[in-house]
């Protein structure tokens, strides 16, 4: 085992409740997308692009902070974020 988990352990001992701020932001973004959805008449490509951008931010936050990919090697982080960009592009282009 590398010393990384031990370092993480020390960090987490100092902050026993990690990810609180990220969780609050995720909740706020969920509320934002729901608010956008209230304007159901405004289902345009622009609306889809805005909603999907919020979704992309949420996935980035979950991946980076909850999945702890911020400590992962660059290729893994790249693959993860390429998926986000691909999903955003496919959905917005086909909307």
């Amino acid at each position: 085992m590398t010393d990384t988990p031990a370092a993480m352990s020390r960090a987490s001992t100092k902050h026993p409740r990690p990810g609180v701020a990220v969780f609050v932001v995720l909740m706020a973004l969920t509320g934002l997308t729901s608010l956008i959805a209230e304007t159901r008449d405004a289902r345009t490509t622009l609306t889809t692009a805005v909603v999907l951008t919020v979704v992309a931010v949420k996935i980035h936050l979950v991946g980076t902070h909850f999945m702890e990919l911020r400590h992962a090697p660059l290729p893994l982080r790249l693959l993860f974020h390429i998926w986000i960009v691909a999903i955003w592009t496919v959905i917005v282009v086909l909307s």
Partner: protein
Amino acid sequence: MSADAVPTTHIPGEEGVWVLILGEMSMFGVFFALYMGARSDDRIAFAESQQHLDLTIGVVNTVLLLASSWFVLQAVTAVRAGAGSQAQRGLAAAIACGLGFMIGKVVEYGEKLHAGITPQSDSLFMYYFALTGIHAFHVIVGLCVLSFLWRALRGPEQPRLLTVEACASYWHMVDLLWIVLFPLLYLV
């Protein structure tokens, strides 16, 4: 954040689990594209059928999965700190949220079936039942994984940290797939 100061790189879980996770994400990416392709062929019918989806349950289920992911993060952090019982509490809370999600899914399916809406009703509901059903299957698998972890933490031999991280990563994947699926079916 102090954790950002960790100088070395570290794959959460084992490499193999990331092959599985990225494979599942790619598979769902194809599903999303198929859905959007079908939707672009008949936007009006999709928009009309979308009115029958229960937005409230969708939002509540989103909150439940996000909360469950946060609890899993707390559990992983507790395992690293050697706090087994705290990790168990985090996992129990995450499992409760996951079960809440499944109850919401059952209620939602029940409402649809009671209203005479089935996968055969139209294209949107065919995709709705298929995509949410496949995702729900992943939630059930994730719940089994978290339960396995919770049970392992009760034993005298603590599970390896890599095993804990792998199980956690799978559950987070279930969460992020729903983060896309929810707006795709209910919002846009």
